[in-house]
């Protein structure tokens, strides 16, 4: 049962990351690969505050969200100078920079040694020490973020985002300041990713820079492409599929000597087949 709860917690965390990135990539059409950086900032701020000051988890998470939002605002301003492929490359660069900071600002992040012993959240004297309770907390966070995403995408603000995605010059002709819309959704998305980072740090109780690499950003992007862009359900389904798939492959009876390698090969082949036969994702409404 603990295993299932663990998997469910990971799905919850990656659902938040998928939902948040979907706002930027799926609804606004900005191909960002910086999400792991914001996820990491949330995780590191929470971990540092919890281990060094003993601050309450929820307050640390809030501070993590604010700091991530400020960083995202700065990055978003720079990225607004780019379009299309250049935007993707620019965001790629920012992920590398933030990762490098995690790795090299050793007095703060402890570099590759990582931060161990991150405590679990406590609320009114109750500690979410058991994984079942932590799952409940994660699901509540997913529900809140899903609701916010649903609200945003159904609102007039969300409709402008879709219009920006289709043709931002046309929507600008109608008097919309597209820069502000892009910036706003980029910051909102980053703040949501910080929530996932806080949950991750407190759940695994240890973080190091290896969890927030460019590959992690690509993994999050794969979640929404597989699940389906511009569809919140797609982020949930994509996260569930990509977290469950390698776990299922653990049960496939390859010989011990080649099992680990074969699982990675099969995982890759399945993803390629899915993209070949379902390029719009499982429930996608938009294609890159």
């Amino acid at each position, binding site marked *: *049962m*603990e*295993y*299932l709860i*663990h*998997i469910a917690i*990971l799905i919850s965390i990656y659902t938040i990351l998928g939902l948040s990135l979907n706002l930027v990539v799926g609804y606004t059409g900005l191909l960002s690969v910086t999400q792991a950086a914001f996820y990491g900032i949330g995780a590191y701020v929470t971990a540092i505050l919890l281990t060094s000051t003993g601050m309450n988890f929820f307050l640390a998470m809030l501070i993590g969200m604010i700091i991530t939002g400020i960083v995202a605002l700065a990055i978003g301003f720079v990225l607004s100078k780019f379009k299309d492929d250049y935007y993707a490359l620019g965001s790629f660069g920012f992920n590398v920079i933030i990762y490098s900071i995690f*790795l*090299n600002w*050793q007095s703060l992040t402890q*570099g*590759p*040694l*990582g931060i*161990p*012993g991150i405590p679990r959240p406590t609320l009114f004297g109750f500690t979410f020490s*058991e*994984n079942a309770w932590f799952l409940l907390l994660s699901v509540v966070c997913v529900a809140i973020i899903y609701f916010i995403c649903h609200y945003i995408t159904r609102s007039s603000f969300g409709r402008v985002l879709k219009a920006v995605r289709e043709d931002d010059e046309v929507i600008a002709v109608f008097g919309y300041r597209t820069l502000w819309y892009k910036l706003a959704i980029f910051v909102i998305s980053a703040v949501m990713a910080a929530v996932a980072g806080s949950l*991750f740090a407190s759940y*695994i*109780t*240890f*973080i*190091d820079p*290896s*969890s927030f690499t460019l590959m992690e950003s690509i993994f999050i992007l794969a979640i929404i492409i597989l699940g389906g862009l511009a569809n919140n*359900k797609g982020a949930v*389904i994509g996260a*569930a*599929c990509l977290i*469950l798939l*390698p*776990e*299922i492959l*653990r*049960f496939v*009876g390859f010989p*011990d*000597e080649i*099992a*680990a*390698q074969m*699982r*990675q090969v099969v995982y890759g082949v399945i993803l390629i087949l899915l993209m070949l036969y379902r390029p719009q994702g*499982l*429930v996608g409404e938009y294609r890159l």
Partner: protein
Amino acid sequence: MNKKIIWTIVGVIVVILIIVAFGVSRSNAGTVKVGALFPLTGGLAIYGEPAQKAAQLAMQDINASGGINGKQLDVVFQDHRCDPKTAVSAFEQLSAQGIKVFTSVACSGTVLSVAPELVTNQAILLGTTVTTPKITGVSPYVFRNWASDSQESKLFADQITANGYKKVGEIYEVTDYAQGVAMNMQGFLKNSGVTFDAESFATGATDVRTQLTKIQSFKPDVILVSVQTVSSGEMVLTQMEQLGIKAKLFITDNIVASPQTVSAHKGLLEGAVGAEYVLQSPDKASNVLNEYKAKYGTDCTQPTVCTGVYDAVQMLAKAIQSNGYSADGVKQYLSTISYDGSSGLIQFDQNNDRKNANYSLFMVKNGQAEAVPQ
């Protein structure tokens, strides 16, 4: 269409969860299982692959001599990829099969992330090649069959003090082990008047000439080369030769343990001092290593890892045989163990670290690393 897809996915997930919940993977009948969390893919598979073979060798020997209380031992491997999140997933998956006794190899972060789960799942872990000092005392259910890398740093620091070196250059890979050695050495020499020029490079970097040139201009008395893998060491040493660096060198255990590397750079490394985790029972070690070669047709590329893992599986089997299959039973056995294994006499201190796990000094002479008499 969308609803059909969603329901299909939900159906598949439910079936999978049912399968997982019942732990259908291997037959449980008549076996005693030990979980093995090894880096079987990725950069540190260079440790994981020989470790897996050594564990299988130990399993074969234990089963050939009657198993554990008449039951066959089954070592169940999972790849942690040196990733904390993957390590927790692998641990939980094995725990769901009812496995309570674990061994692991490499990547201290994976042990630190699994440690809290051991208490929840009433499980125990005996780690090999996990070096960070942070593991000491992390959990009553984590034992370490290896030395802390701070010992290696202390040896280098003592050498610097003894030789009166005042300017030390450091080139280190940004990983927990390699950086740990470099930083701990600085820590031991704090307030000693020694000045440092520490330069780092990321794993996978192919050019460190800039860092080396900067260290060269610092005119150090000695340069520490601290790397995570021997391939990184090859790259650094090759570029040192290209730049004509002649300084005295300190080298980490992975370089010392690679006769090919030491021989290939014998000019540069002549007189270099290294530290290595030594095998204290060379005869017993060679028995295991010969058996390894006979079974697999190739030498173990990491002798200390192979013997350490072989001993770990043997000790866990003895603990289960003596005290039953429980975390507390195995913990109690390991706390008081005095096991004469292929890697030497193994005992654990009050923090569950191996008591007699010591790094020893080596010096390179004529392309070979030779132990320095104490």
